[in-house]
């Protein structure tokens, strides 16, 4: 038989080594079998479907399988039992044979169907399940059988009737009961009436085992085997009679702990050591748990629970909660749009509609729409349907987007530096009094710009030299011009002799330096001075040619004597500046055009002149005697050189880094020097500190013409072409470690501007904190 052959072959194929493989192969086999079934079915009616059932119980095949498994090395003790079963089976089979022989193929099919049906229909439906369990328990045996042999899959069913799984009573009223594969009606078998039925029951001894196949409507007689099965089910036994309930227990996994290793190989070292990678992984997980990145199942569960709860959404969420942005910390939330109001409604309440006046006003503000209260005109429509398209929609969207785009999203942290904080801590000017604050006096009388001013050492009188070729002597307290001395040329510089025992004014006018006795103050002094200047001391030193060509001393002419001029020192070039030494015996003059003879030092008592420098180091602008030491300051255009007059050497060179020096003033203690420059700067040099300016002051807006230290008060003043006199506090401490304190105090701006010139000279009162300034407006002013 082909089937047997097939079975055999299958048995050989399956040689199962373990259960899983066996079962999988079983399913394979099943398919194969099906194919076979089909193949068989097709050629002829001689169906061998019974084989499906048959094979289950076929002793031969099972036997063979059994053997083969034995070959695999399993225990053999089963053989007996299986053979015993076989006996039973064989007896059953015999019965089957008999039935088969009587009923034919179709009946057998029916039987099988009904059997499967029964198993389904049975209230104790656990039959099939238990059977399955059985097969599981007996893997060896069942591996040989198709596992789902009697399952209820429609594929396996012998479908003679094609109507499918429908309640068959639908066909009650028809003659046929369904359709076969050829779509021909399956005609119900002729139904006799009750009497016929009854009679048949009486006649048929097998009536009790005849059931009706609902699909075909045919009567089916149950086989003994079926009946036995039914009986077993009814009695609550395991339906499969092959199942051995009391099989001996095989201990696959022993419960006993072995003393010695089963394997010959000792355990590897790593099996005793904790795994590093595992530890790492665990620590990573622990960290993740700690940080909350990873969640325990409980937490996940809780979260899920929370999520499952009802969710509410705040429609205007950002009204209350702050917006979170990835890149911007603490962002500024975007501006909100206003909520629509009543006026925006398509059908606003009448009070929101514009009346004529409001409309007019709205229209009037056409050019400045931002002034309108509403940016639209409220309109009324009967229904929403009539509302036209909103013409401003795109524009408004665009503007809104623009708003959102342009609005600053991040808060700018402003550097909140108080301007006061940056200003150096300087004492308040109020604490630094006294210093000049107001203009107190204007000395009027000159007719051209006043170039220079100088104060009598006692502080009662004032001398000024002007471009109107006059020198005037003033009484300070009243502003009275006491005397006017006319000269031949423009007076460039005047200087009152600082020695209070002498009454001399040095006047630089043109090429001549005049020594004038002002004839004010102490009469005795005036007389003494006159006596001193009257006679030229006898010259015992013969002067060099170089000096002789540069300077000539002479007594004044009679007419000049009248004016007070006593001695005339004629230079070879115009004198620009004259300055006294503190003791009043020496005076120095500057002639910028004099090349290498531009600075001269005259000695009054000996009527002698010296040219201290043989070489010119630049265009000399200003010279100054040190108040204490025998030092001489010479300012060229850019630098200041300090010479020691005794040793006749250069002591120091101060670098001003300015373009043009205009004047100098030395602090009465002699350690600090103020320099004014035409490039608007004032430079404070601490001579002990450095050759560079200690401080550069840019207080003026124009060229600084003159600076002056007060002799007693810690004050200095500067006059500039911006018509301002700036008074500053310049405190020099005796403590060498303490730097001078410089505080600008007051800007006094009362001079008038004339031809780009403002203040030309400043000078302090020798005693009072009063400053005198001379201006291009031909006045001298006193500030107190």
């Amino acid at each position, binding site marked *: 038989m082909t089937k047997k052959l097939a079975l055999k072959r299958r048995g050989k194929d399956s040689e199962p080594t373990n259960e899983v493989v066996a079962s999988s192969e079983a399913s394979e086999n099943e398919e194969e079998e099906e194919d076979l079934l089909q193949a068989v079915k097709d050629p002829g009616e001689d169906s061998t479907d019974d084989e499906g059932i048959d094979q289950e119980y076929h002793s031969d095949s099972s036997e063979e399988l059994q053997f083969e498994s034995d070959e695999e090395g399993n225990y053999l003790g089963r053989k007996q039992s299986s053979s015993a079963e076989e006996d039973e089976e064989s007896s059953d089979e015999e019965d089957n044979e008999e039935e088969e022989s009587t009923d034919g193929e179709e009946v057998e099919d029916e039987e099988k169907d009904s059997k499967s049906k029964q198993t389904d229909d049975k209230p104790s439906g656990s039959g099939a399940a238990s059977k399955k369990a059985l097969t599981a328990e007996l893997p060896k045996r069942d591996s040989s059988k198709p596992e789902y042999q009697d399952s209820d899959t429609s594929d396996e069913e012998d479908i003679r009737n094609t109507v499918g799984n429908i309640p068959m009573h639908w066909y009650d009223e028809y003659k046929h009961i369904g359709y076969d594969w050829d779509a021909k009606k399956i005609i119900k078998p002729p139904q006799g009436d009750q009497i016929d039925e009854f009679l048949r029951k009486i006649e048929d001894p097998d009536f009790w085992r005849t059931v009706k196949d609902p699909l075909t409507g045919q009567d089916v007689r149950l086989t003994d085997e079926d009946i036995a099965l039914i009986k077993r089910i009814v009695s609550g036994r395991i339906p499969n009679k092959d199942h051995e309930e009391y099989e001996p227990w095989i201990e696959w996994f022993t419960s006993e702990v072995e003393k010695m290793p089963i394997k010959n190989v000792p355990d590897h070292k790593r099996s005793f050591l904790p795994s590093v990678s595992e530890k790492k992984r665990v620590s990573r997980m622990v960290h993740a748990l700690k940080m909350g990145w990873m969640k325990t199942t409980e937490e996940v569960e809780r979260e899920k629970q929370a999520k499952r709860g009802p969710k509410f959404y705040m429609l205007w969420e950002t009204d209350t909660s702050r917006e979170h942005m990835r890149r911007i910390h603490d962002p500024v939330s975007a501006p909100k749009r206003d909520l629509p109001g009543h006026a925006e409604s398509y059908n606003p309440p009448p009070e929101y509609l514009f009346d004529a006046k409001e409309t007019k006003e709205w229209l009037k503000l056409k050019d400045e729409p931002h002034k309108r209260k509403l940016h639209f005109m409220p309109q009324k429509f009967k229904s929403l349907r009539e509302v036209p398209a909103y013409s401003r929609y795109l524009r408004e969207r665009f503007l809104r987007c623009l708003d959102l785009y342009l609005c600053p999203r991040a808060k700018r942290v402003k550097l909140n530096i108080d301007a006061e904080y940056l200003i150096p801590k300087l004492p308040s000017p109020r604490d630094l*009094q*006294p210093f000049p*604050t*107001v203009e*107190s*006096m204007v000395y009027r009388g000159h007719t051209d710009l006043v170039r220079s001013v100088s104060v009598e050492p*006692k*502080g*009662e009188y004032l001398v000024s030299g002007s471009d109107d070729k006059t020198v005037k002597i003033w009484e300070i*307290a*009243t*502003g*009275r011009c006491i005397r006017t001395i006319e000269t031949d040329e423009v007076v460039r510089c005047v200087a009152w002799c600082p020695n209070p025992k002498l009454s001399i004014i040095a006047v630089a006018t043109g090429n001549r330096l005049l020594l004038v006795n002002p004839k004010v*103050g*102490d*009469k*005795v002094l005036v007389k003494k001075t006159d006596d001193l200047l009257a006679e030229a001391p006898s010259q015992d030193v013969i002067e060099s040619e170089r000096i002789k060509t540069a300077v000539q001393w002479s007594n004044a002419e009679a007419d000049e004597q009248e004016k007070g001029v006593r001695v005339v020192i004629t230079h070879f070039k115009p004198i620009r500046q004259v300055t006294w030494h503190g003791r009043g015996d020496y005076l120095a003059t500057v002639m910028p055009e004099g090349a290498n003879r531009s600075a001269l030092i005259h000695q009054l008592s000996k009527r002698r002149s010296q040219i201290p420098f043989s070489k010119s180091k630049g265009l000399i602008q200003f010279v100054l005697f040190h108040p204490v030491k025998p030092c001489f300051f010479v300012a060229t255009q850019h630098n200041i050189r300090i010479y020691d007059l005794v040793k006749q050497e250069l002591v120091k060179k101060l670098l001003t880094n300015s373009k043009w020096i205009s004047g100098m003033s030395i602090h009465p203690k002699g350690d600090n020097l103020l320099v004014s420059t035409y490039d608007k700067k004032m430079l404070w040099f601490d001579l002990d500190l450095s050759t560079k300016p200690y401080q550069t002051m840019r207080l003026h807006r124009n060229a600084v013409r003159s600076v002056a230290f007060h002799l007693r008060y810690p004050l200095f003043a500067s006059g500039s072409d911006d018509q301002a006199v700036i008074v500053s506090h310049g405190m020099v401490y005796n403590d060498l470690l303490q730097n001078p304190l410089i505080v600008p105090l007051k800007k006094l701006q009362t001079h008038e501007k004339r031809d780009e010139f403002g203040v030309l000279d400043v000078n302090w009162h020798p*005693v*009072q904190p*009063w400053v005198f300034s001379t201006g291009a407006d031909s006045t001298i002013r006193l500030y*107190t």
Partner: protein
Amino acid sequence: MDVDNGEGQVQVHLKTKQEHYAVPDVPYAIDGTVTTVELNTFVNALLRQKDGSSDTDFDFLVFDEYLRGRLCDHLREKAISFEDAIEIEYVERFPAPEPQDCLLHDDWVSAVKARGKWILSGCYDNTLNLWTNKGKHILTISGHTAPIKAVDWISLDEETGRFVSTSQDQTAMLWQWNVGSNSVECVSVCKGHERGVDSVSVSPDGLRFATGSWDTMLKVWSAELDDAVEGSSKRMKESGVRTPKITLQGHRESVSAVQWMDATTLLTGSWDHTLKVWDLSLEGIKTEISTNKSIFDASYSKLNRLILTASADKNLRLYDPRTNQGSVVRNTYLGHNAWVQTVMWSTTEEFLFVSGAYDNQNKLWDCRSPKAPLYDLLGHGEKVLDIDWSNPKYIVSGGVDNTVRVFKSRKALAEEAETK
């Protein structure tokens, strides 16, 4: 603007020291915003009720200070509670001095002094001038060789007048003027100062005078006709040259003001920022008040014993020489807008003084009114160099405009008329 923050009504008591203007001492509730004008009409109404007389102008003193502007502002400034009853004293307003005369000179008038009906002025043209108070020029006296800086009367009677003048020629000159013959004789020339003599003051008894100079010295001289100094040489006596009786050194700068406080006490003010009180019997400094401005003039009042100073910063300052902390400024009078050159107390009115400044103005002040002067005495066209009120009837000032201005004080004149 908060115009009407008068804080309601204020309880006031109206008081006066002038009996004939007294009103019943009843508290009155007055609105806080009242000014002197309203108070004036109020007091006048009260007076009219009382005796149906007079229309007088009053000034009102609240806590010893003149009321200027609104009462509430005044109280607030003084931090006086509005709750208390406020005592307002009212005084008859000092009548405005009238400009009377203008005495023309040839040069700046730097010193001026009135005594009796005569006015003596010192001029920058080195001359002294005598005028009557009617404006008649009596005499021009020359003798100094430099501008006169100060003058003072020593004595004056019907026949003779004696006065002293100081000059920048470093001398003081003692003059005797015969009124009848209208002739002047230089009694003596006081030599001793080494620089210009800036100030002079004759002692109350007329026997001595003190001079302050630019040479920082204070010198006291005899003012008697014959300087009976035993030590002085015959030659000097003949030439009429006097030497100082006492020379006091102490100031560091020019002594700009000298005044006798009593027979043996001298007050000096100097450019060295100090006021000094000298005791002549001890020949030393009694008190020193240091200020922080140069003093151009100082004046001491015998009536209230306070010192006024003039300085370059536009302010007049009031000092009390009796207190220990004499350098504390009692009051500051700001009204001038330039350098104040001269100041003088009234010799009869306790609270009044006059000042002259380089803003071409004289001002009449009440020392209880520091904010504003009582009157501006206009007239000068240039800086005022000296002012004098030693004759209570006339305020006389000399200035750079070559004039002496005479202002008549109506009150003094009225009083004089009354006494007659």
